[in-house]
């Protein structure tokens, strides 16, 4: 009971700090702007192909979310432990009856709340605008809801990664640098390496057996795979995603990958945080 109220207090103060420091506003603005841009600059061909605007935009927004959502999640969380160590407040917090697990979980929930608000407003506004302009379509609405829910899930994975790295480095500058690297590798370089592998392999063992596992192993790719597979053949997709749809897995496996990432990052963060000397 006390533990829950402490977790709530920690989550609330993290949310308040994010709000005061304008992170809430910034994250929401970024998502609103990009989602609206995709919705109205990318939905031109919708009528011609007979696909509704919501579904089509959901497909392109899924691809964009792979870049944006992890970036925002890492921006929210990179200083959460390291910053408190540098300011000396972590020692204070850990001297109170708050257990370390409560502190970590409270921080996670606080950042997740910010991201939830940003995604709900950002994608909600864009979705609402699309419905207002192009009309409502149940399948499209479902795709949109699925996109919002899984984007939040993807964000949760990267918030956990951000908190873990923040606890591991203990310095704000190092954590920020390391997380830029994490983002580049997981979100950008990983896909490029996969594409290079596909080109070099030219339909061999790598393409048929290794590639599908590698796609699932990356949280961003798993997120995109799940969303695009769920859209079925409705939306035109290309590149890695086109190949990914021929994978020998049910789409839900991709969600399992996200769950595993979240658990692993959470456990690593907890292990590190337990042995931390503030």
């Amino acid at each position, binding site marked *: 009971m006390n533990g829950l109220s402490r977790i709530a207090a920690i989550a609330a103060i993290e949310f308040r700090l994010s709000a*005061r420091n304008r992170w809430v506003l910034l994250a929401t603005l970024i998502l609103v702007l990009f989602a609206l841009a995709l919705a109205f600059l990318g939905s031109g061909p919708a009528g011609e192909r007979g696909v509704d605007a919501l579904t089509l935009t959901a497909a392109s927004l899924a691809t964009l979310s792979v870049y944006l959502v992890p970036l925002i999640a890492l921006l929210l969380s990179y200083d959460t432990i390291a910053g408190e160590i540098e*300011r000396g*407040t972590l*020692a*204070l917090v*850990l001297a109170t009856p708050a257990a370390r697990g409560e502190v970590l979980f409270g921080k996670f929930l606080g950042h997740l709340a910010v991201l939830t608000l940003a995604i709900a407003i950002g994608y909600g506004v864009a979705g609402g605008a699309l419905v207002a302009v192009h009309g409502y379509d149940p399948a499209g609405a479902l795709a949109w809801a699925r996109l919002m829910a899984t984007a939040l899930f993807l964000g949760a994975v990267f918030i956990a990664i951000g908190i873990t790295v923040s606890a591991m480095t203990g310095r704000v500058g190092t954590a920020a640098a390391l997380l830029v690297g994490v983002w580049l590798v997981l979100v950008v370089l990983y896909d490029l390496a996969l594409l290079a592998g596909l080109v070099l392999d030219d339909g061999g063992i790598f393409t048929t057996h290794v590639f599908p596992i590698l796609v699932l192993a990356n949280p961003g790719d798993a997120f995109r795979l799940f969303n695009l597979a769920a859209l079925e053949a409705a939306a035109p997709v290309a590149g890695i995603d086109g190949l990914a749809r021929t994978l020998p897995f049910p789409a839900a496996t991709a969600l399992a990958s996200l769950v595993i990432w979240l658990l692993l990052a959470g456990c690593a963060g907890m292990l590190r945080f337990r042995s931390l000397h503030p």
Partner: protein
Amino acid sequence: MSHDPVLDIAGLSVAFGSLKALSDVSLSVAAGERLALLGHNGAGKSTLFKAVLGFLKPEAGRISVAGAAPGTAAARRTVSYLPEAIAFPRALTGAEVITYFAKLKGEPPAKAKALLQTVGIADAAHRRVGTYSKGMRQRLGLAQALIGRPSLLLLDEPTSGLDPISRGEFYGLIDTIAAEGAAVLLSSHSLTEVEARTDRIAILVKGRRVAEGRLADLASAAALPTVVRVKAKAIDGATLQARLGGRRLNGRSVEFDCTPGDKLALLARIASHSDIVADVEVSPPHLDDVYRYYSGLGAAGEAA
């Protein structure tokens, strides 16, 4: 009467790899008592606090916080901590910081916010911490530490960087808190700073406790001389020295070292030469001399 110490440390050793941060330190603080922990930077003061909080695992020795092991839930409900150079989030107000820590400690926030009045920053409760002066931030830190009436207060250099007036007020607050029954362990660089504001002092040098006791006892045990300086009427130090003895200081002064017991006799002798003596200045050993004496002992012991 509870004369069981709230904090009891026996034979505590803490090491970081091969570096011995604390060796065989024993201390105890009873309820209502103020103990000042003195030492240079790196003497092990902060390490000792962190060991008491349960953040560091001792290599040897035993710590008891109100009968509980450090870091346990029972110990953490008993103890409050004010770290050195605390920086609360600048974007939060003082009231928000206090409310937050009250919730972490399971205390009613309204009662905790009244502590802002106690430490004298109630007017600034709804201003952001970023606008606070250093003294106000330290007061906010103290208010935070007072939430829930802790039995043991750990204050790590609470007055470093404060101006003399703020420092005096700060110690006034600590007096009140101790008078209400809290055990207070605070650290400082300088003996002059803690002066009459603590009951006992302990001096740490390179992780060893080299002295512990009441300040007056430590000063008399050190047997530092009182210095008596005599100034001649004319620029005639030579005559003065010929008649009285002592060390020549400059053209018109001589200086004597004497024990407290010999002081009156010496002064009487000086007074009998009032024809040539213009002025007498008596300097009892300065607090920093006492501190320097024990620090020197510790350093010598280390070298031996």
